[in-house]
């Protein structure tokens, strides 16, 4: 009740906030980034639509890097821990995050997973984000680089259809190139679209199942770790 006249109109007031809606996420991402940088842990955030071959690529990458480089993995999926189990079979430590109704990983979730994993210094931390080319684009996790994986079984025009993700990524990997003879996919046009959205994006082509192009990918990792 109003204290002046006893009416039931409560006095409202305006408060200036001036904060980015993502500021809470970005705070957590900064904490993650500082933690990883202090320990010289190279963190890659892998994003793609479902079925691009992210988990296969990750398993093959872990096998190829051998046991010389310590590796840990954060797996994001809406439900199940199937992918984390596949990763653990390669011999590395993986933590599964189930996002439930959520469609992406956020900075806070990744922070909790890092606490649990405790990756060692001078190691590589892979984050396999939820298969989704829209939402993960907006959420900084504290990673060093974002890698978007596209496969030749998808549409050539995906970079234009999901520009935010390709704009945010540092590297685009075109996977499943062994299937090119069987699908209608225009590589040159796809690259042109990706560069139109992000002129600085780097591009690699590979087949994780057959091993073609894996060396370039491993070289890219080594170059950017330094």
């Amino acid at each position: 009740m109003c204290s002046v006249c006893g009416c039931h109109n409560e006095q409202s007031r305006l408060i200036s906030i001036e904060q980015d809606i993502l500021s809470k996420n970005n705070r957590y991402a900064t904490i993650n980034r500082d933690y990883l940088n202090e320990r010289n842990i190279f963190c890659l955030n892998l994003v793609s639509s479902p079925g691009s071959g992210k988990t296969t690529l990750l398993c093959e990458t872990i096998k190829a890097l051998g046991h010389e480089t310590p590796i840990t993995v954060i797996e994001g999926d809406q439900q199940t821990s199937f992918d984390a189990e596949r990763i653990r079979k390669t011999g590395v430590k993986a933590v599964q995050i189930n996002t439930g109704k959520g469609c992406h990983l956020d900075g806070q979730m990744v922070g909790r997973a890092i606490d649990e994993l405790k990756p060692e210094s001078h190691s590589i931390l892979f984050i396999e984000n939820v298969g989704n080319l829209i939402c993960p684009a907006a959420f900084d996790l504290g990673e060093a680089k974002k890698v978007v994986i596209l496969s030749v079984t998808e549409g050539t025009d995906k970079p234009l259809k999901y520009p935010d993700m390709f704009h945010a990524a540092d590297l685009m990997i075109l996977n499943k190139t062994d299937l090119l003879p069987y699908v209608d996919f225009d590589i040159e046009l796809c690259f042109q679209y990706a560069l139109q959205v992000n002129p600085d994006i780097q591009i690699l082509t590979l087949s994780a199942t057959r091993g073609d192009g894996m060396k370039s990918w491993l070289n890219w990792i080594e170059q950017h770790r330094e």
Partner: protein
Amino acid sequence: MHELSLCEDMIDLLRERAKVDHYSQIKSIQIEIGKLSCVESYALIFAFSAAAKGSLAENATLKINEIPGQGWCDQCASEVTIEQRFDTCPHCDYYPLEIRQGDKMRIKYVEVI
């Protein structure tokens, strides 16, 4: 549906501010959504009513001010209005344009009791 988690984050942020600015109920929230940010205003309003339930923002009105996208063309040395991130300069077709406005999402102010 990342609009739902953005709404949850927004309410968390306003809950933190409630302690500092001493309010217990929010009547309206004014936000700015850039046309180039990856958010759909319609989905944000839809998600907001669900996220606000049982919070200090329950029954609050979400007022959205859409900010148009603006880019800078190096070739023409002029500022141009753009609809998408990958738009080319409408005068000379040059790209990439430097994004100058329209890729942010900000809470401007709240009306509180």
